């Protein structure tokens, strides 16, 4: 029950984020979506995910507010509102229909189809010695996935730094010194 209330809050927050007139209100609405998602993880008894979602949400919110603080760009959505609404309606109906057709064979919520999870639950403590089974799975049984995830983050940081360093933004013929 509380999960559905949280989902409705998240949907309202997402719609509000799109419809807000100024950017900071929209960013705050996105933050509300993230916080509701964090509480939803807590309700579903996943505290690891809740902590991670909370701190990442705060970091993203700070970065977004910092980036949008002095760049309030109200954009016009008037004009082709009939065409836009029609496209949104058609795509929403299409994706919901296809999603219902594809996902109706999924197992019931809370009863996973993967049998390997039971083996992790039974033997995790004796095999790894970690009492937090989430840590046991992501850093021992599935550590190779975590290595790929870490590589993705590393590549993302390198990409951001490579795009935004000062040498990449200088004009032709301009001498720029690297200061950091």
């Amino acid at each position, binding site marked *: 029950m509380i999960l559905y209330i949280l989902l409705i809050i998240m949907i309202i927050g997402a719609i509000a984020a799109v419809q807000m007139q100024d950017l900071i209100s929209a960013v705050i609405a996105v933050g509300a979506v993230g916080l509701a998602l964090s509480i939803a993880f807590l309700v579903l008894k996943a505290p690891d995910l809740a902590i991670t979602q909370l701190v990442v949400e705060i*970091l993203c919110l700070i970065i977004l507010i*910092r980036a949008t603080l002095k760049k309030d760009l109200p954009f016009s959505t008037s004009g082709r509102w009939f065409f836009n609404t029609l496209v949104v309606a058609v795509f929403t109906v299409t994706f919901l229909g296809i999603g219902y057709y594809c996902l109706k064979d999924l197992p019931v919520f809370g009863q996973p189809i993967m049998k390997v999870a039971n083996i992790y639950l039974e033997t995790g403590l004796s095999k790894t*010695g970690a009492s937090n089974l989430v840590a046991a799975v992501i850093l021992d049984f599935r550590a190779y996935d975590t290595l790929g995830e870490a590589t993705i983050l590393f590549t993302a940081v390198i990409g951001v730094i490579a795009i935004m360093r000062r040498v990449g933004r200088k004009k032709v013929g301009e001498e720029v010194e690297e200061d950091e």
Partner: protein
Amino acid sequence: MNNKKEAAVPDPNKGMTIIVKTITRLTVGLILLYGIYILSHGHVSPGGGFAGGVIVALSFIHIMLAFGKDVALKKLSMRAASFFESLGALLFLLIAVIGFTGGSFFLNFFADKGEPFKLFSAGIIPLCNIAISLKVGAGLFSIFVILVMLKFTVDGKKGN
């Protein structure tokens, strides 16, 4: 945090107001300690390397928001951040490769896993948590610094 660093602040008008600076001075150490707690107890309680690393990065971002970028970059320079990020990635890979001494990638190579529910247990998992937190914290901090610097040069003014 300590008085020498505070005395070295070049411009008292830089950053936010005196209220924010005072509260930051009180809380930023606690935030850093909480991040270290989360990442070092990742194998016995909820948390882990990713969340702990983000909290550690947030404590430095907190300093940067309150005091301006000069003070924050004095505490953790860009060069140090990139060093720690590379160190974290290489440490994680090194732990993985050491597993080959026992025969497989990411082998939990400690013979004695330790007693469960204790801090020193679970073999390689705490070490992996520390490596990941170094990587994540330094990486996110450097992304934030880079975005702040881009904003400053786009707006055409240094500081504030």
